């Protein structure tokens, strides 16, 4: 918190967000944002507090004052009869930053920041939460991290999850390669949750044979809330990076909504399944890889591994970094009455790849055939996934499927649609040879296609159903 007395005309943010009559009133009474004021209105009510910036999406009729009792009120500009500045207090929203303590006995972990709500603060311009903490400040907020590992932080980007794309994926993959080369014991990537699974998928392809864990982490409740899952997720992610035996690209997020444990989900097999729940991520078509506890479990361990089928940590292994991405790739969700024009347009625009999320076992209707045929003839790679998410595209079962195969569509087995999108973009970034494309698409890099679906792979938690409860007790703990 800093307080500086700056003359009005030197305050660059004096009218931050204020327009129209509200701004005129600020001018009239020689006030500005962060002025401590005493305001009187036409009913003789007095308000004492600090003028806050106004959200640009709000009207130009009100002035927002944070009263000295802590409440915010919007005062109609045209009702203000008198006002005067009694002080000036510019807010600096900052977590006390501390240098991260170094312990030679602890593992080295690098936290790469991309933005997102794992690291966020309030934005007065829009009144919303923006990604703005430097990763270094995280330690000020979550000092427990020092008990887990020696953490260094690097801020790569400051973007919302929905703004992540190839411009971020490629430098991110390269940065991971550099960190591994520098000898870290694990990597944590702070990421917004909306497209965290997409990033998990693309990194699984771009960074192969990693010697150490690569852990994506975020939060569903921003860290400006006391009930945030950010701190526990971050602790668990850093613990995973430092100590977990699984050297893969993983997502580390709440298992249940309670503060109990996180689940590690494989980057290629994971999906955000709820818009706001803490335990939004679900492994699809398999079980999660492991549970992570922020306190030791009754066996004195932080990890409960749920499978043996994973790439083990081995610091002598040299990773392969393949940072390629073709941007002319699309994903199309089929629905009844889907118009062929869409596919024709994609062909005309020179799209090189299309993932279809088909119905059932991987179907679209007949009126689309000519458009698909033309697209493939023009050199577009068209692959089929299922919008049921669980299960395989099995296109021999019905004639529709066989017809589509005939057209040259490649079924993706049980690859998730978003994963298929990332993989196709990655593959097309490397080659335009149809044979090579087909081969790369169908050869699993890391379980994006699994040869078999385990009996407990179809696991949709349905609240309190006793059989589900019994099932998860047996298989997850």
């Amino acid at each position, binding site marked *: 918190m800093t307080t500086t007395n700056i003359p009005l005309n030197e305050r660059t943010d004096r009218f931050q967000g204020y327009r129209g009559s509200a701004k005129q009133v600020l001018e009239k009474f020689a006030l500005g944002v962060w002025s401590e004021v005493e305001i009187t209105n036409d009913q003789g009510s007095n308000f004492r507090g600090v003028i806050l910036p106004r959200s640009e999406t709000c009207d130009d009729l009100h002035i927002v004052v944070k009263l*000295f009792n802590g*409440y915010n009120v919007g005062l109609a500009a045209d009702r203000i009869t008198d006002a005067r500045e009694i002080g000036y207090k510019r807010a600096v929203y900052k977590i006390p930053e501390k240098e991260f303590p170094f312990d030679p006995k602890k593992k080295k972990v690098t936290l790469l920041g991309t933005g997102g709500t794992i690291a966020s603060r309030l934005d007065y311009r829009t*009144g919303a939460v923006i990604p703005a903490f430097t990763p270094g400040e995280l330690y000020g907020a979550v000092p427990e991290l020092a008990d887990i590992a020696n953490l260094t932080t690097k801020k790569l980007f400051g973007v919302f999850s929905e703004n992540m794309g190839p411009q971020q994926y490629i430098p991110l993959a390269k940065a991971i390669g550099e960190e591994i080369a520098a000898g870290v014991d694990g990597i944590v990537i702070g990421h917004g949750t909306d497209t965290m699974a997409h990033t998990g998928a693309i990194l699984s392809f771009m960074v192969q044979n990693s010697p150490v864990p690569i852990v994506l982490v975020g939060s569903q409740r921003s860290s400006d*809330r*006391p009930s945030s899952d950010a701190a526990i997720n971050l602790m668990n992610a850093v613990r995973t990076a430092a100590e977990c035996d699984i050297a893969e690209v993983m997502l580390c997020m709440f298992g249940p909504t309670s503060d109990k444990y996180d689940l590690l989900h494989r980057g290629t097999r994971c999906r955000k399944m709820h818009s706001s729940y803490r335990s939004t991520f679900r492994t699809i078509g398999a079980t999660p890889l492991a549970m992570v506890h922020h306190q030791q479990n009754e066996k004195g361990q932080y990890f409960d591994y749920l499978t043996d089928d994973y790439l083990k940590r081995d610091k002598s292994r040299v990773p392969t970094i393949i940072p390629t991405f073709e941007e002319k790739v699309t994903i199309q969700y089929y629905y009844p009455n889907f118009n062929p024009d869409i596919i024709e347009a994609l062909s005309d625009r020179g799209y090189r790849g299309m993932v279809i999320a088909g119905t059932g076992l991987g179907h679209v209707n007949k009126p689309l055939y000519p458009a698909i045929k033309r697209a493939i003839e023009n050199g577009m790679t068209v692959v089929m996934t299922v919008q049921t998410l669980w299960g395989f595209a099995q296109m021999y079962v019905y004639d529709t499927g066989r017809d589509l195969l005939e057209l040259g569509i490649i079924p993706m087995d049980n690859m998730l649609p978003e994963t298929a999108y990332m993989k196709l973009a990655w593959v097309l970034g490397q080659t335009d040879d149809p044979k090579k494309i087909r081969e790369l698409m169908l050869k699993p890099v890391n379980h994006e296609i699994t040869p078999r679906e385990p009996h407990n792979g179809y696991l949709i938690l349905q609240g309190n159903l006793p059989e589900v409860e019994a099932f998860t007790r047996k298989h997850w703990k």
Partner: protein
Amino acid sequence: MLQTLDYQSVGLISGLEVHQQLLTREKLFCRCPAGLFTETHDGEVLRHMRPTLSELGEYDGTALMEFKTKKEIVYLLNQLNVCTYDMDDTPPFLVNQEAIDIAIELCLAMHMDIIDEVHIARKQYLDGSIPTGFQRTAIIGVNGWLPFKGRKLTVTHVSLEEDSCREVIDKGHRIVFRTDRLGTPLTETVTGAELRTPEEVRDAILLCSLTARSTGRVRTGLGAGRQDINVSVRGGCRVEIKGVPRAPYAVKLVHNEGIRQSNLLKLRDELHARGLRRPTDIQMRISDVSDIFADAPVEFVQRARANGSRVMAVRINGVKGLAEFPTQPSTMFTDELSGRIRVIACLDEPPIVMASAQIATLPAGRRIAEKISRRVQAGAQDDFFVVWGPEEDCRTAAEEIRIRFADATEGVPKETRQSLPGGFTTFERILPGPDRMYPDTDSPPTRITDDRVEQARQRLHTAPWERLERYSSWRVPVETTEYLIRRGGAEIVDAAVKETGVDGLTAAVEIGQVAKSLKRSGVPIERLGTEQWVDIFDLHTDGRLPRECIREVATFVGLEPGTTAKAACASLGIDLQNESEWKPQVSELLAHGYTTDTNDSPEKRMRFVVGKAVEQLKRKVPAREIAAFVKAELQGASK
């Protein structure tokens, strides 16, 4: 015996925060039903709370204190009244507009200025009582007043907020809450610190409550209205007594807090006299004394030791004997320590903390006390305290003992105190400041237009004080008027008076007293609204329904909804006779009915005859007319 206190000379002042649940269909920020309370659950969620920065970049003291307690918080969920919003897994829906309208009405009833644009803020509560870790709250009105004992009681502001969870159990590091009440819309009415005696506090609570009730749109029943009382004495500090369920309890609570603060000021003087003038003058030393208690036949200590806990002694320099310094009537300074330790260090094995003097009273206590005294190197002026529990908690407790003595050098610490039965209080938390407030980024502001305020004004019922004045001019007892206002009957009385011309006293008594007794005997009298009562009084003012039969007709209509008063009369056989029919019958009684002692006074004779006649002519003749007739007859005869 009540210890006396001259409120004026100690400068006692008090203000209120009156909480009132609003009668809405849904909760404040989600679509769960409001007011549906359950005692069972079908789900549990476990959470922890961490403090966050305020909008202005500062940590709040209370938040930090609550973080120290490291509580596991468990929420019990019931599908009937809780959704993913309540458990903090879904962002808020737009604020309930019905609740805003009711809050505006309440503000207008208290002459308030309505805020032009309502902004939702988050008020941090890390005690777990709200799963988000903050209460969503917004100021709706400011700058109001209530007429109070010939002056104006300032109403500083009214905020609209979501109610918190109900605590089920708080033991050690685990606290359990039920979530049914969570999210119920609630107004908080804050008055100026202008109340000067405990009785004024009580009366102001009643006035606020009556005003809220007069809107007819607030919840009633246990827990629907609760108040926090702020008390200070001159030289003391604002202490908030939280969760006072009923107005009469306020009297003793305020009185006892006045005494507590006066005593704490005397304690401050005593500390100063001993050279402990500043908080930093208080020094603490902690030692493990588990071994000293190894063989001590002290049950609670042994129970703790059996769980692997430690017994620790805390020396505080220069405070010999001050543990027994009086605070509230029949409590002492040790109770201040134990309250704080229970909440912050989570040690809850009674008596929680023992001072050296209490140790000495234990079996073999004198020897133990001497050993401890040597261990902690207590000088002649020093005192020591013993706590027991997990080592980390004992260390937190030691620090809290030091802090509490340090605070004592400055007088009265700012704190929130929980009200206990019997008019006593115990530490709940440090009094939170404005730093725990920050804007709710999930909710857009709500503009309150002039039209909307005007519409709310149109819906306003008569102010309770106006009604009290009018009804008392009708000679209606104050309690009856207040009952009518609280239960919504006053609106019916006014309508009946206006539409039927019935006299106000009759309507008020029939609706406020008779109906109340019918309700108590199980008659669903609340089924009778304005329409039904107007119908009944219409018949009465037309002279077709005797006053004494109103009760029967009302009961009938209550039991048989949809029946008109006229039909009820017919069913009950209420059918007034002409004078020519009944007067001979009464005359007959006058002549021959009174057969006992002829020396009786005319009054006694009259009462007897009237009684007989009313009984015989029930439902046929109004009792009043019979009485008038008998009186006239007897007077005529005596002439």
